[in-house]
């Protein structure tokens, strides 16, 4: 019907309303304004259901099922972990593309670009923090998603292949996260990735291992080529691969339907995609509203966590000549690092992870128990819990807590003023470090609470190693603070001791601290805010007292 005819028939306002409704219907791929209002009011759909149209006409919704079984839409059945994983991937893509604007993958530029991002780009730190937090959250959520599917037995027929692709997606998520680790080109990145890629070297025979290592690093050691390769893996190859497998995975999820809670179907039955009419919950509007509101809550949570509780670390620039004291893998590879401490590189770094991965993928094909109910799967559930506990123990062994104790004197200084990161001394800051010589075997009457805390910690560390190490007797720690330059203090830590035979030993480590220095633990909005509050309070109390 032409516009003129329309106006003649309904008047100007009526025609405009009809036109607007038409536009609305096109945008929603088939839902008109009246239907939209009825959805919001919670009214049931008419027959035939007009709310199915967007699924058949629109691209985005054709991916989603039109209805779910009521039981699987319960939050406590899936916790929406799969949805959240997908959403985090989208968050990572968006923040990642934005970060690419200010990043060049070369050793000359990468670290400088990090600093420029932090110092010169509005929201630069926010983007970086969110990308980092999102990546770590994605690893955690994908893992939890797998744990949930394991515990509900959702991998059982007919969903074996869904599980298989899910494990592949987990591996890709881990690699994606790990490949991004190198890009800031700081000490943390460089050494974590050096250790990670060195495991590939252990693949037998030697020629294969060396080739794999060479391919990953682009040279015998990580350098310009290695950085470029990890960058391309991170921004191109792995995301594309992950998207491909995501669609395979999700197609299977839609095809078979989400598995019902085990006690709602017969043992050995699968009724996930046979939904009786009275159990159907339609995607529009109920599930859509549910998913959207859930993701909105998660987005807000992610923003709040990023701004107030999380700072992406940035250590000193990568230095192939100097290995930091405690080199650690990212937390999701702690278990692997723990294994490497107790077994040789081939067994711990290649054989065991490989066997574990194959076992994980093969679970649905090995588990012949037809029941998905917890009480029938005692062995599987206990095995799962044992595996989880073993993972946690291995992870603990991966931390510096386990079996990497260095010389006591080195550890003491690392405790109060580590090589990387802030530590107590830097956290207190320049103004709380009075010039002078401070010994652990003497008492001082200093009226600075924070400095007293540092001296106490220093004392405590010296005392701890005196008791723990028979080769560390009558130790004395001396901290000498001098003014090296304007706004620059020099902190010389000196430890002297006697070993078991009475031979004296000593150790010295010097650090400088500038008045304006912040280490990444001090970056957050919280730090800025506490600074403001302290300053504001000072000027306010000053005004009241009349200074």
């Amino acid at each position, binding site marked *: 019907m032409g516009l003129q005819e329309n106006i003649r028939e309904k008047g100007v306002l009526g025609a405009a309303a009809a036109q607007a409704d038409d536009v609305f219907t096109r945008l929603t791929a088939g839902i008109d304004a009246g239907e939209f209002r009825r*959805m*919001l*009011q*919670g009214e049931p759909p008419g027959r035939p259901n007009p709310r199915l149209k967007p699924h058949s006409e629109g691209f985005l919704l054709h991916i989603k099922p039109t209805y779910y079984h*009521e*039981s699987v*839409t*319960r*939050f406590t059945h899936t916790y929406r972990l799969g949805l959240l994983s997908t959403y985090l991937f989208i968050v990572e893509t968006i923040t990642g593309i934005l970060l690419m604007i200010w990043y060049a993958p070369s050793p*000359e530029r990468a*670290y*400088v670009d990090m*600093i420029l991002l*932090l*110092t*010169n*780009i*509005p*929201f*630069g*730190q*926010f983007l970086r923090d969110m990308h980092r937090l999102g990546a770590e959250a994605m690893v955690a959520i994908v893992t939890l998603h797998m744990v949930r599917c394991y515990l509900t037995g959702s991998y059982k027929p007919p969903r074996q292949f869904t599980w298989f692709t899910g494990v592949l997606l987990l591996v890709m998520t881990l690699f994606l996260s790990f490949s991004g680790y190198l890009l800031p080109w700081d000490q943390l990145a460089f050494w974590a990735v050096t250790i990670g890629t060195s495991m590939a070297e252990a693949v037998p025979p030697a020629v294969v291992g060396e080739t794999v290592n060479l391919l990953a690093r682009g040279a015998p050691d990580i350098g310009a080529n290695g950085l470029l390769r990890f960058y391309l893996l991170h921004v191109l190859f792995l995301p594309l691969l992950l998207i491909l497998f995501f669609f395979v995975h999700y197609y299977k999820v839609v095809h078979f339907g989400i598995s019902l809670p085990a006690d709602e179907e017969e043992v050995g039955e699968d009724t996930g995609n046979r939904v009786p009419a009275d159990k159907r*919950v339609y995607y529009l*509007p*109920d599930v859509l*509203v*549910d998913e*959207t*509101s859930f993701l*909105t*809550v998660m*987005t*807000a*949570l992610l*923003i*709040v966590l990023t*701004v*107030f509780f999380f700072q992406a670390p940035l250590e*000193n*620039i990568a230095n192939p000549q100097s290995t930091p004291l405690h080199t650690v893998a990212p937390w999701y590879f702690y278990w692997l690092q723990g294994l490497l401490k107790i077994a040789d590189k081939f067994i711990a770094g290649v054989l065991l992870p490989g066997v574990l991965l194959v076992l994980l993928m093969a679970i649905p094909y090995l588990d012949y128990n037809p029941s998905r109910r917890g009480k029938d799967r005692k062995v599987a559930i206990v095995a799962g819990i044992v595996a989880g506990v073993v993972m946690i123990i291995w992870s603990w062994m991966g931390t510096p807590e386990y079996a990497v104790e260095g010389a006591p004197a080195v550890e003491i200084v690392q405790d109060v003023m580590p090589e990387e990161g802030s530590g107590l001394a830097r956290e207190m800051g320049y103004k709380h470090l009075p010039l002078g010589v401070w010994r652990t075997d003497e008492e001082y009457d200093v009226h600075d609470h924070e400095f007293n805390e540092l001296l106490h910690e220093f004392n405590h560390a010296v005392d701890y190693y005196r008791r723990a190490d028979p080769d560390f007797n009558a130790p004395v720690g001396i901290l000498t603070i001098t003014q*090296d*330059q*304007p*706004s*620059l203090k*020099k902190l010389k830590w000196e430890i002297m001791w006697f070993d078991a035979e009475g031979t004296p030993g000593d150790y010295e480590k*010097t*650090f*400088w*601290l*500038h*008045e*304006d*220095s*912040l280490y990444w633990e001090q*970056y957050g*909005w919280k730090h*800025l*805010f506490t600074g403001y509050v302290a300053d504001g309070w000072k000027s306010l109390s000053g005004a009241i007292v009349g200074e």
Partner: protein
Amino acid sequence: MHRLYTRSPIAKIMWGIVTSLIGIITLLLVLVSENPRMEAQTLSWEGRSIENGATLFANNCATCHGPNGQGLLGRAPGLNSYYFFTDTGRLQDVGWVGSLEDYVRLSIAAGRPSKTDSQWPEVMPTWAGQYGGPMRGDQIEHLTNYVMNWRESALAQTPDEDPFQPFEDVFRPTEFQNTAFLLLSEEEQAAALEEYQARNIRSPQEIWESEACFACHNLEVNQVDYAGQNGPNFADLHERAGSRVADMTAEEYVYESIVSPRAFVVETYEEVGQMPENFAEKLSEDEIQALVAWLLDPDREVTEEE
């Protein structure tokens, strides 16, 4: 029976709206704090750079420039020094037109040649990787920032506190190797030098050696090595000097040739013309007279160096 989806979705939409607002407010907080944050971070990275520079300086530079940058006589000049940081100090003396920061950066990166005539015979090595040194570009930056961070304390030094540092091609008497001398006006410097010369009259042979006359002139007839090729031989000066220029005694001729060397150039040396023209300032009147007499003395005695 779970009947989670029978109720109106309004509650969930409200949840969404409330949390969106929380997210937006948080982002607004970030927005308003971005400028101070970036400022604090910029200062922080400058501070971190200075800390790194301090470590590099202690490990690589302190052996020559001193742990506190006060320099080491005969090895490397002081950097934590008024003379080094003041506009009319080092930069002017070396004829550098750029900023001090650029001078420091370039000197660290590319090194500096030795000054054989001065008190700095040691070569400053090249440090930047691009010139064959051991350091990366960012390390050169850290060191530069560290050295420049002395500015405040250096400019607060009194001339007495300023460590030893002149950086000149000419060897100045030790007495004047200090900032106090450099801060005098030109006339005052000249007066001080004159007064010094009056106090310290050198023998003709000392002048011959310390002013490097021997580099171009010879005192013996048969000497045919390179020394002396740039200037006339003085072995028979007492025979020739009187007849060189009409109306001039031998003494007048030699005196004139020392204070204004371009006045009478011996024919075959016209092309060379290297004789410095500042001996009138560097030598006192008495010294010149003694030198003239010594050069014209047919029986002059030259004591051999040990």
